[in-house]
């Protein structure tokens, strides 16, 4: 086993473990932290694939920005821990069955006999001056300009959706309408209610 393989297995094992813990941990903050860990491991795997630019972006954007924000939200929401675990036992048999079926299928198909080096030969090593960023930049605005633009539109849509869903009509905003205040009449504010007078009570307290 080479060193590279050792690193690969270490990162993969931690990634799978933290992925499971994201779902399994009852504390949402811990879950978010495990998600950070799994992103980090994925970044490690991408570096092994020589996609160092994407790996760094993953760490910077997801770990650095998105997950930090996410952690803030989770902490502020203070999710009820009991409610998270409700229905776990009830749905376990069905879920376990589905998971077993999918994992079984994957084990049957995804393996060295189909994805091994004989089926898919090792790609040629890159030259020393190879830059991940340059090759990405070359195709991003040329071959992939159409998907790139559509992705940009998706982001725009997400912004519109997020703003329109969180934006409330400014009901909280209270202001004085001075002309209305001046023009007010007594009749608008004061209502005189006619009531029958109460029966007279004997001031001496006798019945």
């Amino acid at each position, binding site marked *: 086993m080479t060193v590279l393989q050792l690193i690969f297995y270490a990162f993969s094992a931690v990634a799978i473990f933290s992925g499971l813990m994201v779902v399994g941990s009852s504390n949402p903050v811990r879950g978010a932290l495990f998600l950070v860990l799994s992103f980090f491991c994925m970044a490690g795997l991408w570096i092994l694939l020589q996609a160092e630019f994407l790996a760094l972006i993953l760490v910077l954007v997801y770990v650095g920005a998105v997950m930090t924000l996410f952690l803030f939200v989770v902490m502020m929401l203070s999710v009820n821990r009991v409610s998270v675990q409700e229905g776990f036992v009830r749905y376990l048999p069905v879920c376990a069955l589905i998971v077993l079926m999918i994992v079984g299928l994957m084990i049957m198909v995804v393996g060295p006999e189909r994805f091994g080096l004989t089926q898919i030969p090792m790609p040629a090593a890159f030259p020393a001056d190879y830059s991940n960023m340059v090759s990405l930049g*070359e195709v991003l605005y040329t071959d992939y300009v159409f998907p790139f633009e559509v992705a940009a539109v998706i982001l725009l*849509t997400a912004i519109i959706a997020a703003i329109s869903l969180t934006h409330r009509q400014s009901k909280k905003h209270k202001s004085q309408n001075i002309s209305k205040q001046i023009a007010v009449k007594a009749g608008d504010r004061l209502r005189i209610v006619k009531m029958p007078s109460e029966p007279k009570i004997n001031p001496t307290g006798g019945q």
Partner: protein
Amino acid sequence: MNFTMPVFSVAIPDIFMLCMAAIALLVDVFLPKKKRIITFFIVQATLVITFILTVSQYIHYPSPIITFSGNYILDKLAIILKMFICVVSFFAFAYSREYVNERHIARGEYFILGLFAVLGMMVMASAYSFLSIYLGLELLSLSLYAMVALQKDSVDATEAAMKYFVMGALASGLLLYGISMVYGATGSIQMFEIGNLLVNSTPNQHMIVVLGLGFILAGLLFKFGAVPFHMWVPDVYAGAPTCMTLFIASAPKIAAFGITMRILVEAMPSVQVQWEHMLTVVAVLSMFFGNVLAIAQTNVKRMLAYSSIAHIGYMLLGIIAGPNSAEGYSAAMFYVSTYVIVAAGAFAIISILSKSGKEFEQLNDYRGLNSRNPWLAFMMLLLMFSMAGVPPTVGFFAKLGLLEALVEAHLVWLAALALLFAIIGAYYYLRMVMYMYFEEPLPGASSTPIKLAPDMMIAVSINGVAALLLGLFPSTFIDMCRISLV
């Protein structure tokens, strides 16, 4: 590096729509609240002009063009799907105007997000690689989730949006996993290349592609809402604002049909036996569960949701028959596009009747509709007859075409099953008609005549009469479907 400049002119309708969406967004920001209706008119004008541009493309580009480095295709299928999508969305937005207005849903955002959803469908219609298919699908879905949730004061709508979002995300995950399998086997995400590479695939490649196909189909059927991936459909249809249900039930089905054709027929004909088997199971289950569960519903929106599951089952029959018969695919396309028109009409009537805060969605609300508004009841009758497949309406010809294709493909047992389920389905459509015509309004419910805005009346009339006229003169429409799928 070798790079050929993309032919931008073939994407003119999409580019125009994107520009107009951005303009509408900016205009909406600066409009005073009372003039927000202008946004609505910009959106509708955009749809009309896009439709005209697409029609002109139909004349100018007789042969398919693949451009944007294989990510984009303009062929007859794409053009005709785009035309259908524009028309149906135009009607969906026209119906929404009043409903959205009455319920204080953010009007500008609703129509702008709607326009982005239509753009997503246009991208799907002419996507020719898995990447653009996926991105188009996400653009569509993201807009739809937000549009469902826009009715912020309704708990049902929020719940529906949440369910729709979670299920949709799961479906996208499944689809992506399947795509990664196909990419792993072929090393390409472009439809044409995959199709070529898979013609003489090794057994190993074949096995991987079949697994990928399973996941891709699961993702697609989730979006279609076919059994066993149908759980979200009734909840979302019933919980969403009715105008939104109308939109979800209509145009996206056409776009989903488009990407299904691209993936199954153009990229994966080599695993046709496998997808035929999978789709057969799904189609039979959908027809069965859709029709049987619809009988038990008392809420009209839920009933129509189950009926949509059943109709998706019928549509899949056409795709199953496709490889072995001349008319299968065009029958499926005819079925889905006419179903969409009919479903839009039915949901439109529900949304028009839901006035002054009261939702008109229980089956009992429709008792004696004939005495309250005879024309509207007649339109509903036409739409229900069409869904049931009663002869002069278009639903009959759609089902007839499917059955013909099935018999031609030597799948008589499927045709017999489809007929059996259609008879079960006729029960609840005709029950609706019976309630409207032969029952009195419930005591306590108002029996006053219902008055409608003239523009709504015109739109519904066009929709209902289309169900009849397309049934009387179906040939042009059928020819269009045939042309697009040669």
